[in-house]
């Protein structure tokens, strides 16, 4: 599973990243979590709001920070 946490240097982006890490750990999933912070990369992905979350190339969360519980549901 390939997870992308997308957003350039905002506090919410870091929170989302931590929540995702936590959720992945709790689920015991084998996942690659990547931070996408370059604006131009973000634009290329077709994403406009931060923070956003992409799983295997599909935009799952856009412009908000779900909690660990909700993320676990989204990831499984």
């Amino acid at each position, binding site marked *: 599973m390939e997870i992308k946490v997308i957003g*350039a240097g*905002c506090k*919410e982006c870091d929170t989302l990243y931590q929540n995702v890490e936590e959720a992945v750990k709790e689920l015991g999933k084998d996942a690659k979590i990547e931070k996408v912070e370059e*604006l*131009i990369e*973000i*634009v*290329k*992905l*077709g*994403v*406009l*709001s*931060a923070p956003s979350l992409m799983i295997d190339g*599909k*935009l*799952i*969360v*856009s*412009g*908000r*920070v*779900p909690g660990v519980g*909700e993320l676990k549901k989204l990831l499984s």
Partner: protein
Amino acid sequence: MEFIQDEVLRMTWLSRLLRLALEELGLNVDSRIGGSLHFFLYDCVKITIYLCVLIFAISYVQSFFPPERTKKILGHFRGLSANLVAALLGTVTPFCSCSSIPIFMGFTAAGLPLGVSFSFLISSPMVDLGSLVLLSGIFGIRIAFVYVLLGLCLAVLGGAVIEHLGMENEVEDILRGVSAVEQDIPTLSFKERLSYAKEQVKTTFRKVFPYILLGVGIGSFIHNWIPKAWVLSLLGARNPFGVILATLVGIPMYADIFGTIPIAESLLLKGAELGTVLSFMMGVTTLSLPSMIMLRKVIKPKLLGIFVGICVVGIILIGYLFNALQAVLPL
């Protein structure tokens, strides 16, 4: 109608309650110190209530219009109607100056005309649902309505002018040839929208509250310590350049409408002209030094200059128009 205007929007009950409470404590509200304290407490509580209720309601509406969706909708329109739709969507798309650049880049990468992106860029910080309600509460529904209408006009015309000038080459090279993937936007459930709205209230409150305190502080200082004659001679009808002065002072400042309102309110009470005060507010919310610095990363100085110029001239014209309207119409 009057009841809604005074008690619900303006919260005069809160003013009376605080007056009673302060007098109970032995403070004379008509004295300078008591008056400052009364203004400070009243505005702090009022604006905080506004902030929480408004941000919640607005965020709920905004959750239906993520920028990705706005981008898609805009792709269906051509010409001036595209500018109009961009300006209208600017009022409901979640926006802060820190997200203006990714949105601008995304719009450009999606092939939207430059003028349409700029219509959005002008309207989004200047006019939103929050300013409509907040202005209704302070200045009355009619003024709020005219403010929003004129703000939208500026956004549409400003974008159209930039389009007309053919500035496509004035976009920085990093944006050239970037093409974006079309993304499906995740749909949210009712519960997710509510939790999004709640989250927005929390983060906005944390971000904006210091500005509110500062704004209310300055407001209560103006309200009770600055002589009326000063305000009158600088920003009142006696100074024909008041609008220009207010706009130029407001532009480099970075604050949102919640922090600006108490300053505007106290200036108005002290005899500043309505258009002058509104120009100040538009200047503060629409342009700021940080947002210009960020924009400079993606557009060349010439286009940035034209953008700032259009905003400055537009805001000044709106100010004078309001002052003229105020003289002939009972706003």
